[in-house]
C-alpha cells in the first residue's frame, strides 16, 4: 500500500517535471490587425505573424499555441505570465524596451500613415485624429498638436473616420493599405508618412533570456535564407528589404 502511494506521488511528481521540460510556448497576439494577425473565418489566428511565428517555433524547437489578448493589456499579461511571447505587430520602442525585451526586428520599420475621407484637406492631420490606445501612433498624435481620439481596437479607429467622428486615423501603413484600396474611393491617404519605431519584433519577458536567444537565432536564420522576405511579399504585397 505504502509503495503504491509512493508510486503515485512519484508519478505525479515526474509528470510535473515532464510538463516543465516540454517546450510549450504560448504566443500572445491581438488578432485584429490584418495582415499582421487576424482571426480568419475559421475562427483561427491567421496572418503574417501566425505563419512566421509557427516557422520560428519549429526552428527554435518549441511547440507553440496561439493566444488572443486585447491590445490594452497585452504587455501586462505577458509580464504576469499568461503567455510567453507577443507577436502582434508591436513596434520596438524605447518605452516598451524598459518593460520587456524584444527580439531583433522581423519586420522592417514601416511608415505610419494618416488616412481620411477622400477629398479632405491635408490639414486634417492636425484636427481630431483617431488611433488605437497605447500604440506608437497614439503617442505620436498626442504629442503632435492634434487631438487624439482613442479606441481599443484598430477597427474602431477606421470606423471613426468613416462616420466622421474623427478627421483622420493614424496607423501602420501596411494595415491601412488594404482598407484604403477596398473602400471604393471613400478613404485615402493624406499628409506625409511618418517613420516611428525601429521595426517590429517579438516581445519576450526580461527574465526569459534563453528564449530570447533562441528566437533571435531563428529570426536570423529565416532572414538569411529569404523566408521572411517571401512571407512579407506574400502578405504585404511588397518587397522586404531583408
Amino acid at each position, binding site marked *: 500500500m505504502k509503495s503504491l502511494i509512493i508510486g503515485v506521488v512519484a508519478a505525479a511528481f515526474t509528470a510535473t517535471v515532464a510538463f*516543465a521540460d516540454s517546450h510549450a510556448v504560448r504566443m500572445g497576439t491581438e488578432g485584429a490587425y490584418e495582415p499582421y494577425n487576424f482571426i480568419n473565418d475559421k475562427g483561427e489566428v491567421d496572418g503574417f505573424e501566425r505563419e512566421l511565428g509557427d516557422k520560428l517555433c519549429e526552428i527554435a524547437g518549441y511547440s507553440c*499555441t496561439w493566444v488572443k489578448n486585447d491590445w490594452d493589456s497585452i504587455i501586462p499579461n505577458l509580464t504576469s505570465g499568461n503567455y510567453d511571447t507577443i507577436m502582434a505587430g508591436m513596434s520596438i520602442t524605447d518605452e516598451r524596451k524598459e518593460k520587456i525585451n524584444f527580439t531583433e526586428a522581423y519586420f522592417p520599420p514601416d511608415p505610419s500613415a494618416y488616412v481620411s475621407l477622400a477629398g479632405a484637406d491635408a490639414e486634417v492631420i492636425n484636427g481630431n485624429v483617431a488611433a488605437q490606445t497605447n500604440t506608437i501612433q497614439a503617442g505620436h498624435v498626442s504629442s503632435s498638436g492634434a487631438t487624439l481620439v482613442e479606441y481599443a481596437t484598430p477597427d474602431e479607429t477606421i470606423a471613426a473616420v468613416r462616420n466622421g467622428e474623427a478627421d483622420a486615423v493614424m496607423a501602420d501603413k501596411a494595415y491601412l493599405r488594404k482598407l484604403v484600396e477596398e473602400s471604393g474611393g471613400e478613404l485615402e491617404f493624406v499628409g506625409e508618412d511618418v517613420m516611428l519605431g525601429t521595426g517590429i519584433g517579438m516581445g519576450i519577458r526580461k527574465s526569459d533570456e534563453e528564449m530570447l536567444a533562441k528566437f533571435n537565432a531563428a529570426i536570423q536564420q529565416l532572414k538569411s535564407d529569404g523566408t521572411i522576405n517571401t512571407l512579407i511579399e506574400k502578405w504585404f504585397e511588397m518587397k522586404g528589404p531583408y
Partner: protein
Amino acid sequence: MGGTNRPFHPVLMFEFCADPKAIDGLKWMACYLTTPKHQQFYFSFLIVLALIAGTAPLVMLLGFCGAFMRRSAILPIKWLGHIYTSMVRGVPDIVFFLFVPIAMDQAFEYTRHRILCPEVTEPVYRGNDFVVCTAAKLPLSSSPQWVHETYGFILAMIAFAVVFGAFAANTIDGALRAVPKAQLETARAYGMSERQTFWRIHLPQMWTFALPGLSNLWMVLVKSTPLLFLLGIEDIVYWARELGGTKTSFFEYPHPDWRAWYFLSLLIFYLLLTWVSEKAFAALTRRVSRGMATQGGKDATAGNAAEPEIAGARL
C-alpha cells in the same frame, strides 16, 4: 486568456459554401452566418449561460456565509461580515472585476511556487515580471488551450461570486430578520433546540422574504455578464465586436461595419433572457408564498416592488 482551439469542432454547414466568392444573396448570408467563426459566436452564448448557472450556487454559498458572519456573536467575525458586504456595495463592481481575477491568479501561482519550487531563491517579482517556476504556472504552459480558458472562466466566476455574494448576504440577512419573532418563539415553546428551530422554522420561512431580493439579484447577475468581455473571456461581446467590424478581402466574407446589427442581436438576447427569468420568478414566488400569512403571502411582488434592494445595479 482566450484562444483558438475550441473544445468543439465546427463543421461546414452547406455544400455550396465551398467558394464564398462565387455566391451571393441569401446563399451568401446563409454561408456567412454559419462560418466556424460564427459557430464560435453561437457557442459563446452557451458560455454566458454557463457562467450564470455556475455562479448562482456560489453566490448563494457566499451569501449564506456573509449573512451568518454578520449574525455572528463573535465581534471580529461580525465586523468582517459587515466590511465584506458594505465594501462591495460602496465600490463599483467593475473595479472588482478588473482587480479580483488578477489578484487571485497571482495569489494561487505564488502559493504553488512556494510549495512546488522551494529550491528557487530568486524573488517572484523581478522588475516588472511576475515569475514563478514552470511547474507552478496555473495552468501549466503545456496544458491544452481549453484548460487555460476554463481556468480564466473559473476566475471570472469567483470574481462574480464575490461581488454578488455580498448582495446575497444582504438579502439573506434581511430575510432572516424578517421572519416574525413569534414564530421562532413558538418553536422554542414547543421545545425545539436552537438548531431545530433554525432548520425547521427559521430557514424555510426565510425563503418567502428572500425571494424578491434574490430574483432581483438574479436579474442583475444576468445583466452583468457582458462584463466577461473585460476579463478577457471570449464572450458574446467579444465576438460581436470581432465579427461586426469591417472585413477586407483578407477574409473570405468581406463586409462593411455591421457592429450595430450584432449588438442589436445581443440586446434582443438579453431582453429574452430577462423576460423568461421574470416569468419564472413570478411563478416561483406564487408557489413559495402559498399559504403564508405575511406580506409576502398576500402579494409578494407588489408589496416589495417599492423597495427592491439592488434595483439600481445594472451594468
